[in-house]
């Protein structure tokens, strides 16, 4: 396959965008924020982000906003990832290696089950229930 040109990139993107209902991040979208400050980078957050790209492609999930962000404050627990999605509380996961990414995509995003051993922060139990 030859080198991808900017025009080919534009067309590839257009062909898949017609399948995706593009919208702002609302309560209908899944938003994944990957902490990528100095601490995150040192802990391997770039590999975490890449793992999300690969896993989301593999599972065929659509309408996922995926963004690197700056340090989210829990440097001791990096890589950290915040997941916001409908019908689930917003959760901050810690020590998210590429292996943990696969668990989060399957358990949290697909099956709406927390990956408890990696939850760093979540609403109080009475709010969860």
């Amino acid at each position, binding site marked *: 396959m030859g*080198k*991808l040109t*900017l*025009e080919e*990139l*534009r067309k*590839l*993107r257009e062909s*898949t*965008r017609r399948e*995706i209902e*593009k919208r702002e991040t609302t309560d209908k979208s899944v938003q994944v924020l990957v902490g*990528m*400050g*100095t601490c995150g*980078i*040192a802990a391997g957050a*770039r590999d975490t*982000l*890449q793992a*999300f*790209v690969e896993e*989301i*492609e593999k599972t065929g*999930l659509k*309408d*996922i*906003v*995926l*963004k*690197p*962000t*700056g*340090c989210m*404050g829990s440097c001791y627990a990096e890589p950290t990832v915040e997941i916001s999605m409908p019908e689930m509380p917003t959760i901050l996961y810690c020590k998210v290696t590429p292996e943990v990414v696969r668990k989060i995509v399957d358990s949290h995003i697909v099956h709406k089950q927390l990956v408890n051993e990696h939850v760093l922060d979540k609403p109080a139990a009475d709010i969860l229930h």
Partner: protein
Amino acid sequence: MHFRLSDTVLDVVQNAVEAGSGLVVLDYIDHLDGDKNLLRVCVADDGKGMDEETLKRAQDPFYSDGTKHSGRKVGLGLPFLRQLCDQCGGRFEIESRPGEGTSLFFELDRDNVDFPPEGDVAALFTDCLLLSGTHDMAIHRFRGEEGYSLLKSELISAMGSLEDAEAIRLLTRYIGDQEAGI
């Protein structure tokens, strides 16, 4: 110190973005100088800049301006980079003017035994372009006479957004193709 050189460069580029820049420029150039196989990297921005005192303190590992973490007493990005250049017998220069911006340059000899693992250059450029903010970013990559340029605004115009997994995947592939072609 970061494990990969690309991690260090991303860290420095992030500083440039977080300085409130309208434009960040990254030059990543392989250059043959006689028998020396040099990598030259320059990160320039038009952000808030630093006065002389702040610039000096920014290179102190026990200084942080408190923007990201109030009360924190370390800022390791620039000291890590300076340490790397010292370790490799390279060069490190930084200039800044308040209200005008900052320009950071470093040069490393690829054949030096202490040259660090570089990491994936295409992935580095992808990660730089994904940094959140209203800034634009230009990346100029050269290996000798051959090279390519990337402009964030142009890529967003082509792809609509860089904030989903599919866009990131396509961007990585596009940049990977450019890198493989030089």
